[in-house]
């Protein structure tokens, strides 16, 4: 239950962090809040050769509004985002989904970027990003690129980050006045991992729901009927039910707006 030895680097600027990640390549693993990575290290499910600790890098934890987007720095703590008045106003869906991630103590340390990079197929945050059509921003010494959820989440626990790159930001379209939203999940208990989690955004034109727990990454649907091909019969039934309920709630809110 103790991690294997590793080299520890603690850059003090984003440039230094990107330099380290470029130099050390595949061996270097970014350490954000550590609420998923460190348990895996303690259990020796993973043995990074080099940890690049991002916790002393300034400027990566902003929560801002820019060009119709809620822009959140990768190192913003989940609990800070969840309680941010800006997030409550611009993306109540994300704030609601975040309240189901881990528990208050893990959210105090866990970050938005770390949650996304971990790419847990049952995680709540990716559903909020996928339902709203948000993008994840990767930076390297050569510049930045933006990926939508389909491009970012490649397989369970795997994302499209190349060696030398770092998740630096997520951009979530601001909820429009004519839109409604809803989030719901089914989990064995409040603090347990979700079996199925669903985020939805709706307007007069229809619903965009993102479902976690039925595939390697969030699956976007507009109707529960699209889920007939989910292999596991229990998850299929739960997902269809949740999409139905969450869509109805989102449409209700859109109509009331």
């Amino acid at each position, binding site marked *: 239950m103790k991690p294997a030895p*590793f*080299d520890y680097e*603690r850059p003090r600027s984003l440039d230094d962090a990107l330099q380290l990640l470029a130099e050390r390549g595949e061996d270097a693993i970014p350490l954000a809040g550590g609420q998923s990575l*460190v348990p895996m290290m*303690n259990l020796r499910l993973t043995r990074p050769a080099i*940890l690049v600790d991002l916790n002393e890098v300034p400027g990566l934890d902003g929560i801002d509004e820019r060009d119709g987007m809620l822009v959140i720095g990768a190192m913003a703590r989940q609990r800070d985002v969840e309680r941010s008045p800006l997030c409550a106003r611009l993306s109540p869906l994300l704030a609601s989904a975040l309240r189901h991630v881990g528990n*208050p*103590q893990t959210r105090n340390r866990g970050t938005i970027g770390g949650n996304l990079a971990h790419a847990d197929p049952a995680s709540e945050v990716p559903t909020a990003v996928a339902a709203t059509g948000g993008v994840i921003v990767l930076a390297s010494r050569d510049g930045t690129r933006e990926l939508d959820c389909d491009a970012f989440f490649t397989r369970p626990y795997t994302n499209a980050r190349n060696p030398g790159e770092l998740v630096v930001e997520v951009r979530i379209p601001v909820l429009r006045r004519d839109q409604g939203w809803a989030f719901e999940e089914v989990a064995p208990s409040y603090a347990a991992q979700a079996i199925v989690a669903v985020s939805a955004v709706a307007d007069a034109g229809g619903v965009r729901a993102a479902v976690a727990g039925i595939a390697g990454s969030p699956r976007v649907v507009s109707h529960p009927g699209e889920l007939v091909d989910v292999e596991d019969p229990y998850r299929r039934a739960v997902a269809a039910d949740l999409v139905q309920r969450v869509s109805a709630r989102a449409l209700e809110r859109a109509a009331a707006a």
Partner: protein
Amino acid sequence: MIVRTTVNGFAVEEQVEPRLLLSDFLRHTLGLTGTHVGCEHGVCGACNVLLDGRAVRACLLFAVQVDGHAVTTVEGLGEEGASHRAQTAFVEHGALQCGFCTPGFLVSLAELLPELAGLEDSALRESLSGNICRCTGYQAIVAAARGAAP
């Protein structure tokens, strides 16, 4: 690697291996055995400590990461000669049996107390969902949290 930090108000400087967990640093290097180690992968909450005033898992931090920061363990709650109000409430409500999980609950409550007043039971229980107790069935713990909230 050298770690310079403040633990319960005292300046500490130690040479540590980067892989040393904060929970082991507190217990083995500093002898502060109030912080308990249950699951060692972030689930049980027995190792909760305050890092710069916020409750976090000590088993999910490396000691080197608290360099330049302030840690408060269960030993640092309350004042000299006076228990923290969460500790007093635990005694008054008999909110423990074996006591293994208690330090983690107390640290969680030390941060959460100001927010707990007026919460419905379900919300209060959600606030405490990061701590596992295998003895009490939580009834007395919830009552103590209720009692300690301002």
